C-alpha cells in the first residue's frame, strides 16, 4: 500500500511517501522553491518523492493531509467569538482567507494534485489526520521502540498544543491534551518575538542566546505568565499575550512586566535580552521535565518518543535524557510541521487501515538517518557543475576524503554535498558546511564570513559514535543532532578570574575547550553521532580527520547562508560556495577549490535572503 503524506498551507510544507509502512522518500518544498519555510502546496516535493521511489501519483492508494481544516476553523472562530469585540482587526484579516481558501481545502488539494498528474486522485482517496495525531505518529512509528510513551508539544494545531499518548505495536492510544490558547510553543515563540526573532523560525536563536544570560526573570514568569502544576499541566495568563486577538505575540502588559519593549530585529542584544532568554529557557525545561516525569510515572513506560516544534529544543531534550525518568528517548528529526507529512501517512496506514508495524532490523529507527530527499549521480553532478561554469576535479573516494581532510586541517571552510538530502531542519553530513572545531576563530569566521549571521550563534559537532563518550558527557546515539551535552571535563578549559567577570557575548572570545568552535559558553554542545552504517562517507572523513589530528570531531553546520533554505542541487551548492566565504566545495566525487574558480561567477549573496 502506497501513501503520500502532505503538510502544507501554514508553514514548512512537505511531502512524504510511505510504502507498506516503510518511509521511501520525504522532502520539504522550501528546498526546491528556495523560499525559506515555504507554505505553498508542495508540488515539487511530491514530484521529487515520486521520482525517487520510481512511481507515479496513479500508484498512490491514499493521500493524507496532516491536519483537519474544519476543526482548525472551528478553533479560530470560537477563539474570536470568545474574545469579541477585541480581535476584530485580526478577524477581518484571517476570516476572508479561510472563507476564500482554507474551508475548501479538500477541493484545493484535489485540484493541486490534479495538476501534478492528469486525473489526480479521487475524493475518497484523500484523508485527513489530526495535527497532533500526525506528530505522535511521526514520533512513535519510525522509533526503534515496540512500545513507548509519546509526548507532542508545539504552538498549536487544531486545538491541542501539548498531548500525551501511549504507543504499542501499531496502535497509539491518546491520554491527555492541553488546548489552545495554553501553549508552551506559543509561550516560547512570544519570547522569541519579544527578543526580535521571527516567530516559527527564530526560536532556536533564543535557545542559543540563553546560555549568555542569567535566569533572573524565571520567578516572574512563573508568578505572572504560566501556572505549572506538579503533573506538568499548565495555564498561561492571557493578559500578557496578544496572539488570540491581535497581530503580535505579546502586548504592552508583557513589556511593562519585564521593563523592556520588544527588541527590533538587528538591534543590539543587551544583557537584559540574554537574561530574558535564559529565564524562558529555564521555565520551559522545568515544564517539560514535569510533564515527562508524570508521564513516566503514570504510564510505567521505559521509552519516550517526542515530536512537535518544542521537541527541537535540544537543550531541554538533553535534560530529559539525563533526568532518567525514561531509560530511552527518541526524537523525530523533522519534529516541526514538515514531519507531519510522514506522521499523517503513517497514522493512516497503521491506525486508519489497521496495518501492523514492523520494527526495523538491527535495533535502529526507521528514518534512514533522515536522508530521505533527492540524490544526484556522479555523472549528473559533473554535467550540472559543468553547465554552471564550475572548475572541478573528479577523484575517487579515497582521494576525495584525503583532500577534504587536508583542507579542514588547513582551517578551510568546506561545503560538503553528498548523496540524499536530509529531511528536517538539520544538515546531518549530506548538505553541510564543515570546519575544524579546534580552531578558536572558526565559530566567528563561519558565523560572520560564511553564514552572514549573528556571532553568538553556536555550531554543532559531528563526532564518531565510538568516540562520543570520550569527548562529551554523553554515551547515547544522537544521529539527528537533537541532544545537548557538555564537552567532557578533560577537554574543557576552565575560565580564569578575569574571564569570569566578562558579560554576555564577551564570553564568546574565551576558548572553553580543546574544540572551542563547537563549545557553547556553558560548555554544552549539540551533538551529532556518526556511524559507518548511517553515513559511510562522512564517517570515513571523520576517521581521516581523526587519523591526522587525533580529534574525531568536525564542525557541522547547514549548507546555506542566513535565512536561505539548505542547498538541494549541485547548482545551489555551487551558487552558495561562490557567494559565501567557503574555500572548498565537495559535491559527490567532485572537488572544487575556490582559487581555481572564475570569480566573475560569484554573486552578491549576503543580501539575497531576507533576515529570519
Amino acid at each position, binding site marked *: 500500500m502506497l501513501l503520500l503524506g502532505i503538510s502544507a498551507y501554514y508553514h514548512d510544507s512537505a511531502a512524504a511517501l510511505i510504502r507498506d509502512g516503510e518511509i521511501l522518500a520525504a522532502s520539504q518544498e522550501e528546498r526546491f522553491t528556495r523560499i525559506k519555510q515555504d507554505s505553498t502546496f508542495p508540488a515539487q516535493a511530491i514530484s521529487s518523492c515520486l521520482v525517487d521511489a520510481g512511481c507515479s501519483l496513479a500508484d498512490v492508494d491514499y493521500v493524507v493531509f496532516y491536519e483537519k481544516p*474544519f476543526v482548525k476553523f*472551528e478553533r479560530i*472562530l470560537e477563539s474570536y467569538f470568545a474574545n469579541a469585540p477585541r480581535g476584530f482587526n485580526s478577524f477581518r484579516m484571517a*476570516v476572508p482567507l479561510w*472563507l*476564500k481558501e482554507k*474551508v475548501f481545502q479538500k*477541493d484545493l488539494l484535489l485540484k493541486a494534485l490534479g495538476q501534478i498528474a492528469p486525473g489526480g486522485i479521487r*475524493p475518497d482517496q484523500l484523508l485527513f489526520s489530526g495535527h497532533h495525531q500526525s506528530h505522535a505518529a511521526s514520533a512513535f512509528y519510525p522509533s526503534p521502540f515496540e512500545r513507548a510513551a509519546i509526548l507532542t508539544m508545539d504552538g498549536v494545531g487544531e486545538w491541542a498544543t501539548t498531548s500525551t499518548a501511549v504507543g504499542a505495536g501499531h496502535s497509539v492510544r491518546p491520554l491527555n491534551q492541553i488546548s489552545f490558547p495554553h501553549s508552551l510553543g506559543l509561550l516560547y515563540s512570544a519570547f522569541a518575538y519579544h527578543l526580535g526573532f521571527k516567530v516559527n523560525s527564530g526560536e532556536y536563536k533564543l535557545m542559543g542566546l540563553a546560555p549568555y544570560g542569567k535566569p533572573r526573570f524565571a520567578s516572574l514568569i512563573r508568578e505572572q505568565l504560566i501556572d505549572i502544576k506538579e503533573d506538568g499541566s499548565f495555564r498561561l495568563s492571557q493578559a500578557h499575550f496578544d496572539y488570540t486577538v491581535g497581530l503580535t505575540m505579546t502586548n504592552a502588559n508583557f513589556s511593562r512586566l519585564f521593563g523592556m519593549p520588544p527588541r527590533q530585529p538587528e538591534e543590539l542584544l543587551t544583557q537584559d535580552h540574554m537574561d530574558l532568554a535564559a529565564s524562558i529557557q529555564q521555565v520551559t525545561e522545568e515544564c517539560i521535565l514535569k510533564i515527562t516525569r508524570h508521564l513516566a510515572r503514570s504510564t510505567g513506560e521505559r521509552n519516550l518518543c517526542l515530536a512537535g516544534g518544542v521537541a527541537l529544543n535540544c537543550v531541554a531534550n538533553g535534560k530529559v535524557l539525563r533526568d532518567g525518568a525514561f531509560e530511552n528517548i527518541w526524537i523525530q528529526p523533522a519534529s516541526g510541521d514538515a514531519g507531519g507529512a510522514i506522521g499523517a501517512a503513517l497514522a493512516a496506514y497503521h491506525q486508519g487501515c489497521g496495518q501492523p508495524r514492523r520494527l526495523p532490523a538491527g535495533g535502529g529507527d526507521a528514518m534512514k538517518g533522515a536522508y530521505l530527499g533527492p540524490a544526484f549521480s556522479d555523472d549528473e553532478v559533473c554535467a550540472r557543475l559543468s553547465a554552471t561554469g564550475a572548475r572541478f576535479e573528479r577523484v575517487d573516494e579515497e582521494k576525495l576524503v584525503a583532500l577534504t581532510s587536508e583542507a579542514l586541517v588547513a582551517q578551510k571552510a568546506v561545503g560538503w554535498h553528498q548523496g540524499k538530502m536530509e529531511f528536517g531542519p538539520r544538515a546531518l553530513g549530506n548538505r553541510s558546511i564543515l570546519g575544524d572545531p579546534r580552531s578558536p576563530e572558526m565559530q566567528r569566521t563561519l558565523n560572520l564570513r560564511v553564514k552572514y549571521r549573528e556571532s553568538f550563534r553556536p555550531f554543532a559537532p559531528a563526532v564518531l559514535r565510538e568516540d562520543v563518550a570520550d569527548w562529551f558527557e554523553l554515551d547515547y546515539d544522537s544521529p539527528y543532532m537533537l541532544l545537548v551535552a557538555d564537552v567532557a571535563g578533560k577537554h574543557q578549559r576552565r575560565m580564569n578570574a578575569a574571564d569570569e567577570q566578562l558579560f554576555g557575548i564577551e564570553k564568546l572570545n574565551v576558548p572553553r575547550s580543546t574544540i572551542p568552535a563547537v563549545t557553547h559558553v556553558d560548555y554544552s554542545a549539540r551533538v551529532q553521532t556518526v556511524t559507518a552504517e548511517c553515513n559511510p562517507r562522512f564517517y570515513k572523513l571523520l576517521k581521516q580527520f581523526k587519523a591526522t589530528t587525533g580529534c574525531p570531531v568536525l564542525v557541522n553546520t547547514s549548507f546555506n547562508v542566513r535565512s536561505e533554505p539548505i542547498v538541494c542541487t549541485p547548482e545551489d551548492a555551487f551558487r552558495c560556495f561562490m557567494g559565501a566565504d567557503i574555500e572548498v566545495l565537495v559535491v559527490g566525487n567532485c572537488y572544487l577549490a575556490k582559487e581555481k574558480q572564475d570569480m566573475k561567477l560569484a554573486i552578491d549573496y549576503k543580501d539575497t535572503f531576507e533576515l529570519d
Partner: protein
Amino acid sequence: MVAALNEMFHFLVARKKFWMIPIVFMLIVFGGLFLAVQGSVLAPFIYTLF
C-alpha cells in the same frame, strides 16, 4: 463548493456546535458576496450597508 459546505454542516452537527451554524452560514454567504462583487458596480452599495 456545495460538497464542502455540506461537509462543514455535518461536521458542525457531529461536533454539536449548533450555535456556529448560523454564524458560518452568514460568513460564507456575505463573504462570498463580497468576493463575488469585488470591483463590480454593486460594491459601493454593499460596503455602505455593512
